[in-house]
């Protein structure tokens, strides 16, 4: 049996949630007003205090790790098909597959940071993933994911005081976001990224060129990365837009937070990273419209 006062209290809580004031609620229940008022005041205080937001750095790190786990899960679920690839790419794919299955090194490299010996393997694996993904939208999804990684790496470098390496990673962030925009622009072929950064990249960051494709078996997905075409394509593009908008907000907030705490020596590089992230994310979101 439901207690009447419990019902009244709950109704008032719901009304407060829709923007009504305590006095408006109490007007409906004058006989219970004395008992209700302090409870509603308490509820408002608790609700206000409970509106805690996770730290941007934590959100960026958590998203990066979660996306890595998603990618791993997607890879396990998919059936790789290499028939459409030319010989060199097939061999590359098989070698990578053997590495993935036969050792934890590649998996471990996914979490490596730019000061790790495994970092170059991480970048090479990313480039291979791009090359082995068929559709532009699939590639763009990867670019978005890799951009998240770059931001996490920049924040990591800033925290560690390795300011000399931030520009290199920012260069890759620039390229990932530029490729993301160009791959999702209607009617535009993927164009070479226009680097804003003065220093030349130390690792060739541009995704490997995709060779001319042989006719494809229509029903076969490729490594679980592709979005296919037709009806699903639009939905996936909408999803990607939501993801990129969210990433843009979180990543820029994470970089700003890192800037606030960074040593003076790292601030110029971080400011360049923020400027590039803001401009490139804006362009990518416009391209996804």
């Amino acid at each position, binding site marked *: *049996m*439901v*207690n009447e*006062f*419990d*019902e*009244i*209290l*709950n*109704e008032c*809580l*719901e*009304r407060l*949630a*829709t923007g009504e004031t305590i006095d408006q609620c109490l007007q*409906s*229940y004058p006989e219970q007003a004395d008992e209700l008022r*302090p*409870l509603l*005041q*308490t*509820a408002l*205080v*608790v*609700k*206000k*205090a*409970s*509106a*805690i*937001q*996770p*730290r941007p750095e*934590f*959100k960026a790190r*958590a*998203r990066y*790790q*979660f*996306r890595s*786990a*998603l*990618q791993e*899960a*997607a890879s396990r*679920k998919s059936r790789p098909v290499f028939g459409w690839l030319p010989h060199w790419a097939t061999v590359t794919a098989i070698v990578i597959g053997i590495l993935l299955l036969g050792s934890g090194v590649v998996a471990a490299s996914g979490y490596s940071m730019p000061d790790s010996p495994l970092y170059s393997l991480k970048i090479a694996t990313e480039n291979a993933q791009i090359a082995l993904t068929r559709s532009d939208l699939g590639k763009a*999804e990867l670019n978005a994911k890799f951009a998240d990684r770059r931001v996490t790496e920049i924040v990591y470098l800033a925290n560690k005081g390795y300011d000399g390496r931030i520009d290199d990673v920012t260069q890759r962030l620039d390229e990932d976001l530029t490729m993301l925009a160009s791959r999702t622009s209607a009617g535009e072929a993927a164009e070479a990224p226009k680097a804003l950064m003065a220093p030349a990249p130390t690792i060739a960051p541009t995704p490997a060129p995709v060779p001319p494709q042989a006719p494809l078996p229509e029903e076969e997905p490729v490594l*679980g990365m592709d979005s296919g075409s037709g009806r699903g394509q639009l939905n996936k593009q909408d*999803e990607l837009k*939501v*993801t990129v908008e*969210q990433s843009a907000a979180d990543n820029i907030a994470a970089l700003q937070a890192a800037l606030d705490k960074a040593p003076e020596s790292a601030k110029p590089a971080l400011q360049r990273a923020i400027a590039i992230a803001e401009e490139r994310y804006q362009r990518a979101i416009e391209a996804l419209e």
Partner: protein
Amino acid sequence: MHRITIAANRKGCQVQNEEGLVRRAQQEPEAFAQIYEAYFDKIYRYIVVRIGSEAEAEDLTQQVFLNALKSLSSFKWRGVPFSAWLYRIAHNQVVDYLRKKAKHATESLDGMVKAVVSNDNPQMELERKVDIEQVLLATKRLTEAQREVISLRFASELSVAEAAKVMGKSEGAIKALQHSAIVALRKALISESENG
């Protein structure tokens, strides 16, 4: 007498969309990213209020989503919203954490539950800004069930119906628990303000 009409099915539309999304995520894990974005902050707040620590809540929140991803294929639609399933994972994570923490606890909360404050203090200073630390401290004086209902209703903003699904109780029981939790919180906050 007013009848309750406002809260009913407030999120019905969202749940319908969610069902399609979850079904797709079971086939294509990457679709789970949208669910992650929709629930991340809410689950984080739920855990913060449950355990009373923002720092510890970070790792637990992350683990909730990794566990959900691992178990996603086993999720079946049986009239229970996906959010209830997700919060159950978060609940289990919190219970595990609290159990481990209790083993290493050096302080007892027993003594903290003794505060009994008169309700006839009309000018109570609750209008002043009460920061999160005070509220989190106050929630430690609640029972586990009271703390959970506060987490679900105020931190995660779930409806009574959703909270009932998460906690496996009737809606009436949730309303009663909510009432007792607010009363207990009020006493705890008054006690804190008097002590310090």
